């Protein structure tokens, strides 16, 4: 938003490097006294300008012209859909933090997973703080080489393996295969790294240790296998 004060232009005309002024002075034809008078007048005008040409009060220039822009970057929601590959039944894990970092605490919703089943796991990322809801998954799809999901389980009999790959035949993790075993309780941590080193040791098989990069998502879901 452009905000200008009338004085700004007044000062510009008195720019000390103005070559014309220097040339005129260099001619040396003017008397010192004359010059002093001119100078005094110039500065007087300048200060009068400051005193009286107070900056115009338009309709409150500090009020942002529009509501703060939508936070395009924000990911409010991570959805993991476990689809049973036999029954096509969906089990949805959802992390939602509508007001972004800070503010209200996020909401975590999970469903129990049946044991000894095979699943296809789809990840989708949303920004639900804007209307209509923005699909962030497509942004990841545009930059597959620069992103990778990692899955770490604690205490739960669940395995995850990548079901997709980028142009370099390296995994991404938007689509995965999963298998549950005997009933158990624990956690599943989902991490999305931006700019990981996918060729580092163990990274392409899902080991986060050497991945590097910076974390876009790190969400831990409680998991119960029944």
């Amino acid at each position, binding site marked *: *938003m452009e905000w200008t004060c009338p004085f700004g232009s007044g000062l510009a005309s008195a720019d000390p490097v103005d070559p014309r002024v220097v040339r005129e*002075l260099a001619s040396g034809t003017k008397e010192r006294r004359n010059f*002093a008078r001119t100078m005094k007048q110039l500065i007087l005008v300048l*200060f009068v300008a400051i005193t009286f040409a107070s900056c115009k009060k338009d309709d409150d220039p500090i009020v*942002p012209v529009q*509501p703060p*822009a939508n936070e395009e970057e924000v990911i409010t929601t991570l959805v993991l859909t476990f689809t049973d590959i036999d029954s096509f039944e969906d089990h949805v894990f959802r992390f939602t933090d509508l007001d972004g970092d800070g503010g209200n605490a*996020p909401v975590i919703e999970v469903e129990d997973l049946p044991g000894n089943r095979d699943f296809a796991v789809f990840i989708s990322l949303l920004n639900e703080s804007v209307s209509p809801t923005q699909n962030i998954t497509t942004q990841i799809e545009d930059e597959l080489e620069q992103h990778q999901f990692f899955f770490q389980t604690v205490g739960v009999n669940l395995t995850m393996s990548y079901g997709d790959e980028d142009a370099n035949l390296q995994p991404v993790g938007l689509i995965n295969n999963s298998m549950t075993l005997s009933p158990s309780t624990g956690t599943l941590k989902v991490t999305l790294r931006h700019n990981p080193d996918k060729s580092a040791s163990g990274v392409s098989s899902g080991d986060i240790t050497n991945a590097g990069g910076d974390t876009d998502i790190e969400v831990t879901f409680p998991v119960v296998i029944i």
Partner: protein
Amino acid sequence: MLKPWLLGCLFLLIISFTTGVQGQDVICELDFTGTVTDEHDGTPLSYANVLLVEAERSAIADVDGYFSITDLCPGTFTLRVAHLGCEPIERQLVLLKSIRMDLFLEHHSEELHDLEVIRERPDENVGQPNTELDKHTMEKSTGRSIAEVLAAVPGVTILSTGPTIGKPMIHGLSGNRILMLNQGIRQEDQQWGTEHAPNLDPFSSDRITVVKGAASVQYGSDAIGGVIITEPVDLPRTAGINGELRGVGILNGRGGGGNAMLQGGLKGLRGFGWRVQGSGKLVGDSEAPGYTLSNTGTREQGASATMGYRDLRFRSTLYFSWFQRELGILRASHIGNLTDLDNAISTGTPWYVADFTYDIDAPRQTSDHLLAKAEMDYALTERNRIVVTYAYQTDSRKEYDIRRGGRSALPALDIGLTTHTADASFKHWIGKHIHGRAGLSGLFQRNINEPGTGIRPLIPNYQKESGGVYLIEHLPLGDRLELEAGARLENTSLRIAKYDVSGTLLQPELEYTNHALGIGANWSIKDSLNVRFNISTAYRPPHVSELYSEGLHHGAAAIEVGNDQLDSERSLKGTIDIEALWFKGRLRTDLTFYTDKIGNYIYLRPAGQQLTIRGAFPVFNYVSTDALLYGLDATLQVAVTSRWSVRSRTSIVRGRDLGMDLWLFQIPSDRTETTLLYTIVKTGNWREIELGFTSNYVAQQRRIPPGLDYAPPPGSYHLMGFQASVTRKLRNNEVRIGLQASNLFNTTYRDYMDRFRYYAAARGMDVSLWVRFGFGRPR
């Protein structure tokens, strides 16, 4: 490696003391030169008599008004200047090195005769410990940032964010708790952010004064810890053009910079002077021992122009400057959450290292600072003057983050700060024992977030208006004691406009009224012992960032929550500065003791954790407490022989949170710098030959509050440096060349005051070579 060096330095000190006491050859090689001219019409006052009373040495000015007294011993002298038909005029002069002074004698039979040294200080600051960095000192850090230049002053340290961003810190305080005056104008450039370096071209000034005391009486709000003053350069007053070219090559970063300056006056128009200056700097990635600090390049360019006119009654100056900077932020410091930070700390090396490049990528910052100033000074009578100053400045800052979907080219933060400042003061002379100035000052400021970043603004739009009145009286009591006392009252109002999370417009208005009082004394107990004493209050209304921050601070991996109930910080700072000369000036000691009690000291206090989609982050609330800072700066200078000397500077600062009874976070640790200097004043056409070895020891900070930091403070470190410089006269021209080397042994270290110490080590060895070429006869 550390201990032998320390022992070495200690040994040198002992040697210097012992030889100092016994030594026979006194270093009496100082020169006092200059000119005496008539203030009124500028004619050289030939046959003026210049006398140094205690030295019993005098000189008669030649036809050009030039005088020279050579081979003087260091010390304090009474300078007496006399000219036919005038009563002699006396001034105190402390001579520690060869100096040149241009003296102006006001030469009207009916008016009081006065001697005026052309270097006129913007303010007196009686009783305040202050250090002046002159051209000679500053040129050694050619090509360095303003914070690095200032670090040569004891008590001044750098709060840095990687190798590219440095903020000066005085007595443990930085940012909005110190004030920067650029050409006499409050520098308004988003100093609230720790990753916001001052937008100031170090090339644009030849002289910087650091006042290490509370000085709100003199300068208004924010002058809690001290004031940094880049002083206006004196314009030529007579015809003729001269100039200066400076260049520097910097090894670490494989870059360099340069500056060109041209100044002159006009024939037939005495009193008119002009000056133009332009500079540039380009450095690539810095190197730490063993790896490149990727994305730490810097590009800077600046230009300034001044035009001024001055006669006996009337003076005026127009000043314009522009400074632009683009800098890269260490790529490896870009982290998503605490896990990344823990990984960075446990790995010990940056996770992202690429080949050296000059390219600057996201994360990066660009800033543009523009200053226009007009000043007018009119003498109503011989000793009563009115000074009116107006300045307009804009500061535009854009910060680019690493973003998805090709949005890295879109700034994540885009703010414009526009500030108008106006000041009118009346310098009055009530009598010989009481004179001073009274004044009014005002500020009008707007901070506007440019739309289109796609991110909720870090700080809201606001408008700030403040106005103050002040009175400072100077009370000289005899030749040896002068007092100064002053008071200021200031009102600040803030109007904020922001949208909350649900999209509702909030427009809170806040108002703060503050006052400051100060008293200071300069007491010259004897010629070799000077004491400065000052006790002053200072204030700072809370900044908008402290009132209304809300959300994740990416660089700090923390959620910061503002508090609009915060009140102004109020500081009461007392300083005593004792400067003494011993053994006929062969040993000089300067000790500054200070204590600073700050009420409502605003800081971030941990308040649990908050879960986000990126994992859990620690939450910090802006709260206020009472804080106490105290410490000591010590300088010791020994002339061992006429050529060898040793200089040592030590700074100690302690900071306590009195409310919580804890140490304060991010207070510099104890440090000492010792330099062994070898100087030859003149040999043949070569002058001012100087060789120096510097040892720099920084202790580990052990006084830390628990639970505020992600990693323990790094260990102590010791760095060695080398410097050499020489001047050569070439008729009317002069060349000065210097070599400066730091971290000579490429030591790997991390500094507690570097916010990027979690991610990478500090810069390794660096060598810079600088040249200054002055042409035309400087008058």
